[in-house]
């Protein structure tokens, strides 16, 4: 008997048995038989070699090639290629588990590579509940510098040089704000932090407070020195319990260390800081309403002037900045205003934190230099849209006060002016990505509804005007839109913008205006054709199956919660409108847009 030219050692251990080595063996032997090769190739069953997780496994000699996860279907190819033609089948090879060298470096991952961290510099690096770890990352060094080596004027000058603008949304130059307040005489002044973050989809401030509360404490204390204040409050919404808890701990620790309270760092400077918890009214993010709320009154805005720098909390000169603004201050003092102003664009300096959310792969918190194009943020950092068959439609910036930016403006550099020009606002940094399954009319309705809930009711344009706007938009989404509705919306919007008392009302029509600007055809479609192309507005969906588009996959049938869909293999689905409850589950599950 001549020797076999090839030995195939197939594992016959329990693990490989369980994963189908017997079926593979039978198929292999049969195939060798068929090709009349049974006398030149032998198949041997061996004991377990420990790779049960990747079974069935087989080693082929003389080459010593190690195959894993074999299936009966692989036999044909394996015999044809390897046994007959002598070409081992690479796709079935055992692959070395990737070593850590093969792991990408953080800097190679677009999500991290395009970011530049200033406000978030300590994220993920320090224990938020340990002041020592904050100090180890140069924490309170800026305060020490401001208290011992700088005059109040120098501090303000440094902030002015940096070009830092308010990160709460309006973008007012921070240094100027401090200067106004510093120039007002008076022995009682206040430093406030606005942590009443309320835009749907925004969570920048919460994240900073949770990850790095001391940076806010330090920034505020530096401002206190600059304007001559000894008392500060952080207005944080009660819905952020973890932020409140960590902030309180930070204040306690700083007080214990003498970094707050009397005679800070033995320099004779005093500053006391406490938290005021807001009850969650959106309007209390407006500065004058916020101050009234701290005073213990109902949170409602008042006309400006006088501006808070002259008459703020309890009518005393006050500086109010948002969490992210404060988080930038210590780094500016440490590294200098020139360093900060070297980052960003002509008019917008430094970095901006965005809360990236919606139809995007990497939901999270990103900090990028001002001027970074939206496309970089959404596609490189955000990793693009999760559903392959969906197209990008718009990105919503600035929450209820902001607007939508469509595809053609994605290369816009992100700074205050460019975004405003495109019809949205920088806002606090909420960034909601939307694909083409989003109805723009419905989105405008959502934000109007939000504004209606949150309007404080003090001034008529906001209270009544937004209600009328909501009613009209609701009518349109319900399929009862009429000619003239769009014009009425525009007229109301202009009026509300002009005559509302505070920022909430003045910006409330923005979601409608920006969607009208870029997606007017969708409004018209809703009104005249009674059609919602995104299949969002239930009143305009017929719940019928397009037999041409239906691929007969049965996914709608399997997912329908009320068994209103009948379907058989190879036949298009049929929806029984009597049973249908219009929940849209079928539409969400159809990959071919076959239901309309």
């Amino acid at each position, binding site marked *: 008997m001549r020797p076999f030219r090839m030995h195939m050692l197939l594992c016959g251990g329990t693990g490989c048995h369980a994963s189908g080595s017997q079926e593979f063996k039978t198929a292999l032997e049969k195939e060798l038989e068929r090709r009349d090769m049974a006398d030149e190739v032998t198949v041997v069953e061996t004991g377990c070699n420990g790779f049960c997780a990747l079974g069935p496994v087989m080693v082929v000699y003389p080459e010593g090639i190690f195959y894993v996860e074999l299936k009966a279907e692989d036999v044909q190819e394996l015999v044809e290629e390897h046994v007959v033609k002598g070409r081992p089948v690479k796709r079935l090879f055992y692959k070395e588990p990737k070593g850590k060298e*093969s792991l990408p470096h953080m*800097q190679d991952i677009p999500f991290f590579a395009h970011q530049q961290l200033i406000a978030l510099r300590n994220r993920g690096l320090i224990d938020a509940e340990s002041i020592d770890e904050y100090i180890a990352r*140069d924490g309170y060094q800026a305060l020490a510098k401001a208290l011992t080596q700088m005059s109040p004027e120098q501090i303000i000058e440094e902030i002015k040089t940096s070009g830092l603008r308010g990160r709460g949304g309006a973008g007012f130059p921070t240094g100027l704000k401090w200067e106004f307040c510093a120039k007002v005489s008076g022995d009682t002044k206040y430093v406030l932090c606005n942590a009443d973050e309320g835009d749907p989809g925004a969570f920048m401030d919460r994240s900073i407070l949770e990850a790095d509360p001391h940076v806010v404490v330090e920034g505020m204390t530096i401002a206190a020195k600059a304007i001559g204040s000894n008392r500060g409050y952080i207005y944080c919404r009660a819905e952020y319990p973890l932020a409140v808890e960590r902030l309180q701990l930070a204040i306690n620790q700083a007080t214990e260390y003498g970094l707050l309270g009397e005679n800070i760092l033995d320099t004779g400077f005093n500053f006391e800081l406490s938290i005021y918890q807001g009850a969650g009214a959106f309007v209390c993010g407006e500065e004058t309403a916020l101050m009234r709320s701290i005073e213990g009154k109902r949170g409602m805005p008042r006309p400006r002037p006088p501006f808070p720098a002259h008459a703020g909390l309890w009518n005393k000169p006050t500086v109010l900045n948002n969490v992210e603004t404060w988080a930038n201050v210590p780094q500016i003092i440490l590294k200098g205003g020139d360093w900060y102003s070297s980052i960003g664009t002509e008019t917008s300096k430094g970095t901006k934190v965005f809360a990236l959310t919606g139809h995007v792969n990497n939901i999270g918190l990103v900090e990028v230099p001002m001027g970074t194009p939206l496309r970089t943020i959404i596609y490189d950092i955000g990793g693009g849209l999760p559903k392959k068959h969906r197209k990008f439609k718009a990105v919503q910036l600035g929450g209820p006060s902001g607007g939508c930016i469509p595809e053609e403006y994605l290369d816009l550099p992100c700074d205050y002016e460019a975004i405003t020009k495109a019809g949205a606002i920088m806002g606090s940094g909420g960034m909601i990505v939307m694909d083409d399954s989003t109805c723009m009319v419905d989105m405008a309705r959502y934000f109007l509804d939000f504004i209606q809930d949150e309007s404080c009711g003090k001034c008529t344009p906001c209270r009544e005007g937004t209600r009328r706007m909501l009613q009209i938009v609701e009518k349109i989404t319900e399929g009862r839109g009429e000619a003239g509705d769009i014009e009425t919306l525009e007229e109301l919007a202009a009026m509300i913008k002009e005559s509302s008392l505070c920022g909430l009302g003045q910006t409330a029509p923005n979601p409608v205006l920006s969607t009208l600007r870029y997606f007017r055809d969708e409004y018209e479609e809703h009104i005249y054709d009674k059609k919602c192309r995104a299949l969002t507005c239930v009143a305009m969906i017929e719940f019928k199956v397009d037999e041409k588009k239906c691929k007969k996959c049965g996914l709608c049938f399997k997912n329908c919660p009320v068994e209103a869909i009948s379907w058989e293999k190879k036949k298009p689905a049929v929806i029984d409108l009597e049973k249908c409850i219009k929940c849209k589950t079928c539409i969400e599950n159809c990959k071919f847009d076959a239901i309309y």
Partner: protein
Amino acid sequence: MAKLKISDLAKIKEQVSRRTSLRNGGAKVKITVHMGTCGIASGARTVLNAAIEELERSGRKDIIITTSGCAGLCSHEPLVTVETQGEEPIKYVYVNDPKMRQIFNRHALEGEVQTQFALARGSEQQ
């Protein structure tokens, strides 16, 4: 705690660096569980407890377990960073109780990076 003077800031910095830096201190491995609201909501507390349990079981004194805030990639939470002395930190994503135990036993104890759960090596800032 006595009130600090400016010179104390540098002292604290040095002390903490000695404690948290793996190069000088007694610790060989540092495990950071990221506990922002996003992390906690997706199960970071279970992960932390699993890590602590495994640490107790191992009886090792040279492994530090600590917490930190959100690392930014909220959609991949819970995140855990494992840093071994002299090596680049490794970030793990979508960690749960069994994954944490495996990471602890194979990576922290035996130095074998669990690449199947890992996102990247290195740190965000150079």
